[in-house]
């Protein structure tokens, strides 16, 4: 398709044609320049706040660094991480959080459908289910801590019900401490999940569900065969957000509830980075851990997106 500059101009006069093309290039160059200048502030911010710290962390992962002085030690920090067994323990702890995601996904879906179908008490629940999500994680953490410490409400309740043998120091052993952490995670995340799924369900025609009901589909059949497939985009979003969270966002909860104990048994990678950097002054080691965490989180997110892309295609 010819443009205005080509109209009425013969190709047989190259000099003139060249003169005519010059302003067109200028306009293009100017457009590009404006585009680049417009992007520059965003690029500058990303470079200053993301790429520069990333570069610094990467560099310092090869140094022994106390925040003031650093010396090049090559791969020593990485070797140390593998040698001490820290990495295995930290990955195991992150993996436990990761494995808890299907649980909250299922609970959120069930609660969403119950609310959607308006079961008894759903009106009241609709008004309160989001409250834990707007609470600060630190508040949730301290609440859990006060409920589950050895003389807390949970043990008192067991005693009152005559179930004294069930009392224990919930935060004192790894298994029960993880249970409390995951309970806190579920409690705080349920509102987020239900909100996402309910808003997606609101856009789905009720005719489909009514038709399924008329065809004799039971509650669980409707959930698994109709609602879940229709909610797939929301489920993907919820999963990605929470998978990333278990690698880079679990810090606050662990800090507030268990402090990473007992014996680092509930310490995830981001909490260990904090401990090594700011309590041990070992910022080089912490930088190396950060680089490993970045690689893992990026890898997991990439794999997840690939899987979801494939699912979408199918």
């Amino acid at each position, binding site marked *: 398709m010819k443009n205005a500059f080509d109209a009425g101009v013969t190709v047989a006069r190259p000099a003139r044609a060249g003169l005519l093309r010059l302003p067109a290039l200028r306009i293009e160059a100017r457009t590009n320049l404006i585009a680049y200048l417009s992007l520059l502030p965003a690029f500058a911010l990303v470079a200053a706040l993301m790429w520069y710290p990333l570069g610094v962390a990467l560099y310092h992962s090869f140094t022994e660094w106390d*925040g003031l*002085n650093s010396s090049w030690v090559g791969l020593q920090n990485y070797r140390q991480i593998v040698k001490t067994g820290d990495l295995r323990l930290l990955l195991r702890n992150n993996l436990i959080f990761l494995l808890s995601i299907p649980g909250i996904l299922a609970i959120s879906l069930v609660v969403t459908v119950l609310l959607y179908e308006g079961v008894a008490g759903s009106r009241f629940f609709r008004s309160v289910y989001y409250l834990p999500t707007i609470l600060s994680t630190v508040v949730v953490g301290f609440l859990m*801590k006060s409920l589950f*410490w050895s003389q807390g409400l949970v043990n008192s309740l067991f005693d009152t019900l005559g179930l004294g043998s069930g009392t*224990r*120091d919930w935060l*004192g052993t790894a298994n029960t401490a993880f249970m409390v952490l995951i309970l806190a995670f579920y409690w705080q995340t349920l509102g987020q999940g239900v909100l996402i799924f309910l808003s997606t369900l609101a856009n789905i025609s009720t005719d489909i569900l009514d038709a399924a009901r008329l065809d004799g589909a039971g509650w669980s059949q409707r959930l698994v065969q109709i609602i879940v497939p229709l909610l797939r985009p929301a489920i993907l979003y919820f999963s990605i957000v929470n998978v990333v969270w278990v690698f880079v966002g679990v810090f606050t909860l662990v800090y507030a509830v268990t402090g990473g104990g*007992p014996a680092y048994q509930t310490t995830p990678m981001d909490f260990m980075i904090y401990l090594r950097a700011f*309590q*041990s002054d070992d910022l080089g080691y912490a930088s190396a851990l950060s680089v490993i965490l970045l690689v893992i989180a990026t890898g997991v997110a990439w794999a997840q997106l690939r899987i979801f892309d494939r699912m979408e295609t199918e």
Partner: protein
Amino acid sequence: MTTKAHSIQSRRRVLRAGAGAAAGLALGLPRIRRAGAADVELTMWQMIFPVTDPNDKSKKPEDFWIHQAIKRFEEANPGTSVKLEDPPGAPETFTKYRTASIAKNGPDIFATWSGHYMLDMKQYLEPLDPYVTTEDRARIFGWEAATEGFKPGEGTTYGIPAGTDGVVCFFTNKELLQKAGVDPEAPLPPTFDEFTALLDQIKASGTTPLVLSNQSFVYHTLNYWTAQVVNGAPGLQELIDGKRNFSDPTTLEVARKWATLSNKDWTIPGTPTMEESQAAQLLFAGKAAMITSGAWFIRDARVALGDKLGMVKIPDFNADVTIKDAGVGGPGTVYVVSNYSEKKDAAIALIKHLVSKEEQEKRATANEGALINVNDVDYTTLYNEPLRLQQQQWVSDPAHVIFWPDNVYPFELITEIIQRAQTAWTGDSSPEEFMKQLDQKRDELLGKS
């Protein structure tokens, strides 16, 4: 033409006005700076003096000695003001100080814990030897805790001792001991093995003998008995240097017996996750007969328990130890000055005010927190609490005080001990595993250094 001339004139006027403003600023700014130079604002962080009273929530920070002492300093030094902050306790405050110091915007003065807690931050601390006089060294005690290598006169002094914690011992509920048929005024059995019989006796009376917190279960008992069996500070240094192992039979035996405090139900469950204040409340509520603590605990305990409050030394680990009838404690706190502070002289002046004879007399009269650590104040006439008097007498006899082992261990090592002790206490790891983990961490630290 007129327009052009007008434009030039306008430009000249603007330039002239700009030049005038610039000159004004140039002349004015130094005046502002000179005026400001007379006003010094010091920032002080402190984590060692009480500023709240659990028994009287209506008390304000200004009702406590440290705030009053600073107010007196400000009154005596017009133009100098002090911004006092009371950040949360360790280890968060150390983290806060480190991060602030990297950015060079931490406090001018930090009242903190002594020994390795302080020395591990020495890259941010001002050496204080040039500021400390012979007179200071003579009248204040505890310099070893503020000096690199723990040897005054040999290493660099980074802090000025801020007080002494007394000697850690058992504070008892005498009523509950009496109920169990134990004489509350008598000393406890002299060794750990004999002590366990008494624990059983108390337990049989329906009372849990002990309540320990997530720090005291290591700092006050495990560390004390470990220090006893390795003959105090030199032995602890050997453990740090790798010349002796935590897994050696003598120290392993300590870990084994220490763990029985938990697995024989002599303590209230939940120790590794119990805050010190929670443990204290359980003692005050009569849920346990004894707790370990130091001089700082007396004031609150007296208000809560009244005449029922008793105080006895912790038994020795066995009859073979050389440092007998003792306890951990001593000068666990210091004032330090940040090396990036631009007001070091004023900071030193404030510290010297706080440790002055006059202020230490007022502090002794206030009867709050730790004990005084100066020899020119007659505490016998100033303390109105017999247990504080007793504590001050105990701590005045260095043969019966083991300086805080957690202040002697490197920070990373003591953090590891606390973490690993949690599972050893609950039985999730054996004493052997516990001690081997400490050796491994110590070796890792040695390899790094």
